[in-house]
């Protein structure tokens, strides 16, 4: 009878799958190897009991206090998202291309609109502000539409429920849409920040958290989990905020007054939400 090597007995103790059955059968029949395995077990069990000093309940907070001043400022750019290394979404994933396409279409539309809205007459300089306004108007309309789509997903989630009590609810459809919206949302938030519209960026930031929450929930949720999501939506008042800001942007787009209102009622309204 061939005895297992020390290495195999240690691997057996560690729960390694390879050759496990053979070692178990041998150890059952061989008192010598059984004794050897018991010695390994006893030693490793004794080593496990070396105490580690308790760092205290607030240890995590202390670590944060120590490292937070040393953390560099992280600023996310929309191009980081489009061209970065694969993270959760591989670069070739369809939704990354959808987002890239959306941005490209937006830039192209803004460019064409700027070109055709004011015919270029030789000798007469085109007012740069007019072109800027047209581009802003397209952006405002796009964000308005984005908020409208987000609102629909949130309303559907708020209204969904199990067919029978206690049954799980499938929210995979809402999840996929939330994931797609998430990518657009980041780009619009970044643009709003760059344009100095902090109120709009703030609402988009809150929306992003909610969309992330939905995107990372399980596909099948229990009624209790669904209620949890609903309560979070309600507590943040995100649906109301999205509705108010979306409506305001729509009105801005239609009236042609695209600039972020400074003292206007629109901004006051957004600041209230």
């Amino acid at each position, binding site marked *: 009878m061939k005895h297992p090597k020390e290495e195999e007995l*240690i691997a057996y103790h560690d729960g390694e799958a390879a050759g496990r059955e053979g070692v178990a059968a041998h150890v059952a029949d061989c008192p010598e190897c059984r004794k050897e395995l018991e010695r390994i077990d006893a030693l490793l069990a004794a080593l496990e009991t070396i105490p580690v000093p308790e760092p205290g309940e607030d240890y*995590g907070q202390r670590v944060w206090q120590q490292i937070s001043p040393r953390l560099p400022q992280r600023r*996310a750019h929309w191009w980081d998202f489009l061209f970065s290394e694969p993270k959760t979404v591989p670069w070739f994933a369809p939704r990354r291309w959808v987002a890239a396409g959306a941005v490209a279409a937006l830039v192209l539309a803004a460019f064409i609109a700027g070109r055709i809205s004011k015919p270029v007459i030789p000798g007469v300089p085109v007012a740069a502000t007019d072109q800027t306004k047209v581009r802003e108007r397209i952006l405002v309309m796009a964000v308005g539409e984005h908020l409208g789509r987000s609102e629909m997903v949130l309303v559907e989630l708020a209204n969904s429920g199990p067919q029978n009590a206690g049954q799980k609810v499938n929210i995979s459809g809402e999840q996929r849409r939330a994931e797609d919206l998430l990518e657009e949302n980041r780009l619009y938030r970044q643009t709003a920040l760059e344009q100095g519209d902090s109120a709009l960026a703030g609402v988009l930031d809150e929306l992003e*958290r909610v969309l992330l*929450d939905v995107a990372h929930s399980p596909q099948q949720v229990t009624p209790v989990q669904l209620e949890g999501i609903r309560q979070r939506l309600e507590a*943040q008042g995100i649906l109301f905020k999205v509705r108010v800001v979306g409506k305001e942007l729509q009105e801005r787009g239609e009236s042609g007054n695209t600039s972020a209102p400074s003292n206007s009622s629109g901004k006051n309204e957004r600041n209230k939400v």
Partner: protein
Amino acid sequence: MNRMRPSVETVFENDAIAVERTLAGDREAFRVLVERHSRKVYQLAYRMTGNQHDAEEVVQEAFLRAYQKLSQFASRANFGTWVYRIAANYAIDRMRQRKSEDSQRELPPRASEDGAEMDLMSTVPDAAPSPERLAQSGQLAAQMRLALRALTPAERTAFVMRHWGGSGIEEIADALKSSTSAAKNTVFRSVQKLRKALEPFVEQRGQSRAMGTQL
């Protein structure tokens, strides 16, 4: 109506969400990750370095490095495992540095930092024949610490990750920057060395207990 707002911990209950938000520039999200995983990383760091001061330094450095490298982190759901590996990696460097500092100064191996704990443990009376009691015996505990300290940084890392952290061979290989077969070998070598150094004490302990005497 005054509604309860959910805490940041609730919003970022999922590591993946907290990582995404950190990448989007939200420092609060990273704070949640630090507070959530610090203690486990500390336990690993302490077992590897053998002293509180170095362990705390390893924890801080691991989170700083994780923050800097976050955009390269591929599977965000396993942030805990990832930061654990970064800590193991840094702890090896720290131990190697300590070893070379000590040898330059011609110091004996570091034993004094935990000396107080060892003395305290030697006063614990020996009552029941359990592994816990064995470890509480001052002499055995001291021997165990010395034996662990005598391992090379790579062996100690491999042993701690495998037997205390429950890490898989691939994870250990990643931390050691070696192949899986080399990592497997390092784990085996570490156990073999510990057996050689400690089994006489464990067995002697068992025998003296059987005879009703103490070591």
